[in-house]
């Protein structure tokens, strides 16, 4: 069982962000009270193998609040002594004091939202930190005794050099890199810019090329691509991440957080404070087809693939499946089906074709 805790506060909104995050520090106390009671209410006593503080910017809030949350989780669940406990951080709000505090309360994995090591790109994205701050924060984390450090890189802004950035991050002893492509979401500042023909945004082709090069580089350096966007040195894969792809049960606490019962029910908390405080939840029961779709969609993103036996139908009867196997776009080994890594950048098209049949 996995636990996700959403911290919806930020010091400022990034230009590409369409997620539940608010620049609203006066809400903090009330929010954490609500969060604590939600955890208490939904406690099951099950064993928790990982906890993930995501955001928003968990590093910008008073760390004592995180301590309260962890305490509550320990009360209501059986937190495994080996549990992976991750926090997402922004380099600019990361201080030595905070890092020491995190270490003390049991956080053992850091995920830095580096995005880029080019100050112009960072500015364009509306990030508050600089290259210098990012590298400094990572060094500080190392000094505080953190080993399991991850950095996010955002692909798709012209002028950025993700491969170059990755090399620098590896020299700083980062063990895990997540590479995402810039998504232009409705209602964001970036969307407005893009609709005005902003020249800073790279085309899908350009981003795809950059991704391919980055992937090659990271693998050459000894990292493993265990999921399309995630690269890690052996032993440093995020078990929390993997749980999402493999259909494990997880509980999400906090504003807009998602939960999954590991079978056929997915639910999500409300994405505004008011509704969250009144306990509004939207949930859906997955049909057999939807469950199948998820298995394929999530499985093909990972090096682990998916198990044919888990599907409710015989995938071998699909003409597109047969074609993909023939063309070596999909690999089949025993019951496990995986996507040829050469086609990772086009995984959507493969998944779509399978779902269409």
């Amino acid at each position, binding site marked *: 069982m996995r636990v*996700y805790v*959403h911290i919806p506060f930020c010091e400022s909104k990034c230009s590409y962000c369409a*997620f539940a995050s608010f620049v609203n520090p006066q809400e903090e106390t009330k929010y954490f009270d609500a969060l604590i009671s939600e955890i208490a209410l939904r406690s099951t006593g099950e064993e928790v193998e990982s906890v*993930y503080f*995501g955001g928003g910017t968990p590093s910008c809030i008073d760390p004592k609040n995180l301590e309260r949350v962890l305490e509550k989780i320990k009360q209501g669940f059986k937190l495994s002594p080996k549990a992976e406990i991750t926090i997402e951080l922004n380099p600019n709000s990361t201080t030595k004091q905070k890092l020491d505090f995190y270490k003390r309360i049991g956080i053992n994995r850091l995920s830095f939202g580096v995005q880029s090591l080019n100050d112009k790109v960072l500015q364009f994205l509306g990030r508050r930190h600089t290259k210098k701050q990012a590298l400094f924060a990572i060094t500080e984390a190392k000094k505080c005794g953190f080993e399991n450090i991850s950095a996010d890189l955002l*692909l798709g802004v012209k002028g950025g050099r993700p491969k170059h950035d990755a090399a620098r991050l590896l020299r700083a002893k980062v063990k895990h890199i*997540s*590479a*995402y*492509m810039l*998504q232009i979401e409705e209602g964001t500042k970036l969307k407005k810019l893009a609709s005005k023909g902003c020249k800073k945004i790279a085309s*899908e*082709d350009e*981003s*795809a*090329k950059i*991704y391919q090069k980055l992937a090659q580089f990271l693998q050459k350096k000894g990292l493993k691509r265990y999921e*399309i*966007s995630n690269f890690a040195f052996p032993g440093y894969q995020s078990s929390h991440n993997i749980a*999402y792809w493999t259909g494990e049960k*997880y509980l*999400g606490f906090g504003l*807009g*957080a*998602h*939960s*999954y019962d590991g079978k056929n029910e*997915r639910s*999500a908390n409300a994405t505004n404070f008011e509704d969250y405080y009144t306990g509004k939840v939207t949930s*859906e029961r997955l049909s057999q087809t*939807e469950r199948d*779709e*998820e298995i394929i*969609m*999530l499985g093909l*993103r990972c090096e682990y693939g998916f198990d044919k036996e888990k599907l409710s139908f015989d995938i071998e009867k699909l*003409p597109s499946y047969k*074609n993909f196997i023939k*063309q070596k*776009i999909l690999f089949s080994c025993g019951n496990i089906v995986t996507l040829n890594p050469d*086609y*990772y*950048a*086009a*995984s*959507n*098209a*493969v*998944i*779509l074709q399978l*779902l*269409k049949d």
Partner: protein
Amino acid sequence: MKEKIRNFCIIAHIDHGKSTLADRLMELTGSVAKRDMQSQLLDSMELEREKGITIKLTPTRMNYSYGGEEFVLNLIDTPGHVDFTYEVSRSLAACEGAILIVDATQGVEAQTLANAYMAIDANLEILPVINKIDLPSAQIEKCKKEIEDVVGLPADDAPCISAKDGTNVEDVLKAIVERISPPKGDENAPLKALVFDSFYDNFKGAICLVRIFDGSVRAGDKILFMQAEKEFEVTEVGLFKPKMEEVESLSAGEVGYIAASIKSLSDVHVGDTITHTALPTAQPLPGYKVVQPVVYCGIFAVDGSRYNDLKEALLKLKLNDASLQFTPEVSTALGFGFRCGFLGLLHLEIITQRIEREFNLDIITTAPSVSYTVVKTNGEQLEISNPSNLPPAVEIEKILEPMVSASLFTPPEYVGAIMELCQQKRGVYKNLTYLDKTRVRIDYRLPLGEIIYDFFDKLKSATKGFASFDYQMDGLMPAKLVKLDILLKGEKCDALSLIVHESSAYARGRAIVEKLKKIIPRQLFEVPIQAAIGNKIIARETISALRKDVLAKCYGGDVTRKRKLLEKQKEGKKRMRQIGSVEIPSEAFLSILKLDDEQ
């Protein structure tokens, strides 16, 4: 009785208001109650109404009182398109007179002229009618002068009407009675009836639309189709009012229908003569012709497993359209389908649209081709209407291609543009006549194969739509033709092959691969598109491999959003045809014809 009958048709250029006038005439004579009027009654097919053109003729009988006497007016509507010239000629043969509609805003157009000449050839009395006088741009006097100068008919007393709002339509009825002569013929002579159209009725079998010239016919009679040499027993005769209405008998001068439990429309040939088996007429009516398809193409179901549905659809359409021809065809790229023959491009378009609409089948239509006569080095002669059946170049002695003689009508300022176009299309110049100050007629001999490509579109754009065009088949001519193959990812796609003239093969090959590059979506792998003549590659483009938005972050386990996004994309995904390992949208096959719009 005969003296009170008037058999007439309406001839007009497309969109000059034929169907609207027919509607008004029916309304005025009370043939249909106004509340039942559905605009343009005669165009019974949905598609016809949508396109605003009449394809299939539907006759109607109207009663009209004039000068204290009751007259019977039989309107035989005619199709207004060059594809159906033969049908038009048979309809004209069933009439004594024709109303020639000229649009007051457009004047005399090519089709007007071609049909007017056909009517004159058929010895019909022609009543010019000037329509659309309600429009501000109507030029009645100019129009009258054109009718006199260009068509050569007096137009002084031509009714000037607006079929749309009904102005002066009564004058048309009067003119029909006064000026068109009643049918001749002898009721007591042996039966002689002209089949000018047919359709299939699920209960009565094939229905023959006939004009009785001599004698009479009633249920129970044994009849003989003189050209088809088939015999049947009449089960019912009747009139069109405009719905079918059974009567006791049809006699000389009348227009109506004969049903005789005829199982298949292929036994009924337009232009055939019906007579009594026991007491036949001495001579069949003249003018009978077996209609041959002019344009061919392959038709395949997008979903290959629906081959039988496609076959069913074609069989059903054939019931109502004897001119449609089809034979099974196998394509390595598209699987099982049919090679179909049509009277022309419009006919092709109508049939393919009807298959999709009325039978709910997604189909792929391959590039249309004409029928070439191929003489092999061993002396053998072949008719090739499917490019992929063309023998290898070394076995070919010569290829003959069908030609047409074309007349183009244009204002003088576009003469240059038209001649350039005809020259490009390998036309042979024949003649140029100034009909008047505003109108020139240019005659060319052109290969039919060049016309079925983009000739109409190009003509339109070269002359801002002012020129019009009419053609007739005009024999065969040897030409240096080659087969142009298209290869996708190294595999020849037979459904994309074309027969083209050697001189334009390179340009065509280049244009096609460029066009396909635009039309074929990116695939999971690189797809080279090549054009080849024999083993020689003459053009190449490459579609780069697909790379698409994969690296979206899955925020906090929000899997639902991702799935919904995929589902949305799934809905939007077009059905495509798998050719080897490449997916092609079905419009690709026809699109290779429409190349010039983007160059």
